């Protein structure tokens, strides 16, 4: 108790030294130390757990080389195109399902149960349809994100306050005006949330496809490091990838919430 009292007392002086921050720092330091001990212990085969310096060197080598940004650009482009295709078709399908109870009752069960199935198994089919280049990766991304976006948009549309819809009707808004002025603004949360979930799965779909069959992209870098048994580089690529993925996800989530504050 006295410990906590003292720690909270110091918070006024040192803003960062809260118990939570200290505990986090302790965790990180312990993890790094355990890692380093394991690395030099010789318990594992050489380089399976590389030392921190090796990973750091590999990380610097990775991000200071122009090649990495080219691969990153390729992957970014594939995910972006896949997400745009998946989002546009997903939002359209979601609006149709959300707007008509009968159509929803007919088709939504299929989407609902297809949604969580493993998408990567469609990759051989996508290769046949769209070729071994970027096409099949984009298709994987689009296919992966279509389901969460559709289901979120459909559910979001059903939750719109009926008063808003009656207001639109009483102003004799046309279908296009209803969509642009009533439905879409009222549904920005489900849409942003659907996009966030969709982005996560599109990223996984695209990158996994790249590891399976490709000669460019971050997924390719991962599998290339594995094939060359360059473990420090493998750790470095994965580290960068995880930081980017978590960062983008947090950014989109923040974006969705910022909206909420602004409009309410």
């Amino acid at each position, binding site marked *: 108790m006295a410990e906590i009292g003292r720690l909270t007392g110091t918070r006024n002086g040192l803003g960062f030294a809260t118990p939570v921050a200290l505990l986090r720092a302790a965790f990180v330091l312990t993890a790094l130390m355990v890692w380093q001990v394991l690395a030099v212990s010789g318990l594992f085969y050489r380089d399976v757990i590389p030392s921190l310096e090796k990973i750091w060197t590999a990380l610097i080598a990775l991000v200071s080389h122009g090649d990495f940004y080219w691969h990153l650009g390729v992957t970014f482009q594939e995910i972006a195109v896949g997400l745009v295709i998946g989002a546009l078709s997903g939002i359209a399908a979601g609006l149709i399902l959300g707007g008509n109870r009968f159509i929803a009752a007919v088709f939504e069960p299929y989407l609902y149960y297809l949604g969580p199935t493993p998408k990567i198994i469609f990759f051989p089919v996508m290769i046949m349809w769209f070729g071994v280049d970027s096409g099949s990766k984009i298709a994987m991304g689009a296919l992966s994100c279509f389901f969460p976006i559709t289901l979120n948009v459909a559910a979001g549309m059903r939750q719109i306050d009926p008063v808003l819809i009656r207001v639109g009707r009483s102003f004799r808004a046309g279908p296009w005006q209803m969509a642009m002025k009533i439905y879409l603004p009222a549904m920005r949360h489900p849409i942003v949330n659907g996009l966030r979930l969709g982005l996560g799965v599109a990223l996984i779909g695209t*990158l996994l496809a790249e590891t399976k069959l490709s000669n460019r992209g971050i997924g390719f870098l991962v599998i290339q490091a594995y094939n060359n048994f360059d473990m420090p580089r493998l750790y470095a690529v994965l580290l960068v*990838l995880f930081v980017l993925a978590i960062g983008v996800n947090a950014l989109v989530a923040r974006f969705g919430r910022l909206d909420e504050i602004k409009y309410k």
Partner: protein
Amino acid sequence: MSTARLIAPRWLPPMVGLASVVALLAVVELLIRVGLINRFIVPLPSEVATSFARVIAEEGIFQRFLQTAWECFAASILLATFGITIGVVMHRLPLLRRACETWVAAFASAPLVLAYPLFLVLFGRSTTTIIMLAFLSGLPPVILKTLEGLSATRRVLINVGKSFKLTPAQQFWKILLPSALPTIFVGIRLGMIFALINVVGVEFLINFGGLGQLINELAERYDLPGVYAAICFVILVSVIFFVVTERAERWLRSAA
């Protein structure tokens, strides 16, 4: 709502759904037979249907199904054990929770399955790799839902426990855990879904094990009707899995 029900009887939507699927397949079949779709890219639906029997008979699908099921089962046991334990510990120690809950949430959004080459190095091309990846990918939702369930225990219930002078252990086993169980099961179900996706996905990617490998193998043999049949089979298995766990979840919620 009521008008919709008056117009459409309950059996109509599933019937229309089924009819549209059949119609779609018939159109695809026709387009391929006419030659508008290349049959070396998309196989005839009728050919896919007939290759079901062949795939089941020749590819040891039952064995593969058991292998995939076993991997999912092992991952689920690990998930439940570690996920609930970590969740309970984090609930007990608020400081730990404040330090780590966002980390767990961030961990949930990391594309962990992409680390499969790393797991190949650590555990070899084996069942262990598949189970470990499935386990770790499904872990965050179990932890987060356990925390959510325990924190949402109603104040009244806790006070009842206090007025009976329950020990912390009794308080946990008799009050907190039973009240959190439905929410925890939601987490376990989510974790199991992630585990299933990752098991099949990693089997496909590393060409090892059960149903996922079957698809990879048939694709490498360029047995297109077989690939489509195997994909349909995997989807069927996962849908059955979702329906069963969903029923279990609903039953648990109504029982609680």
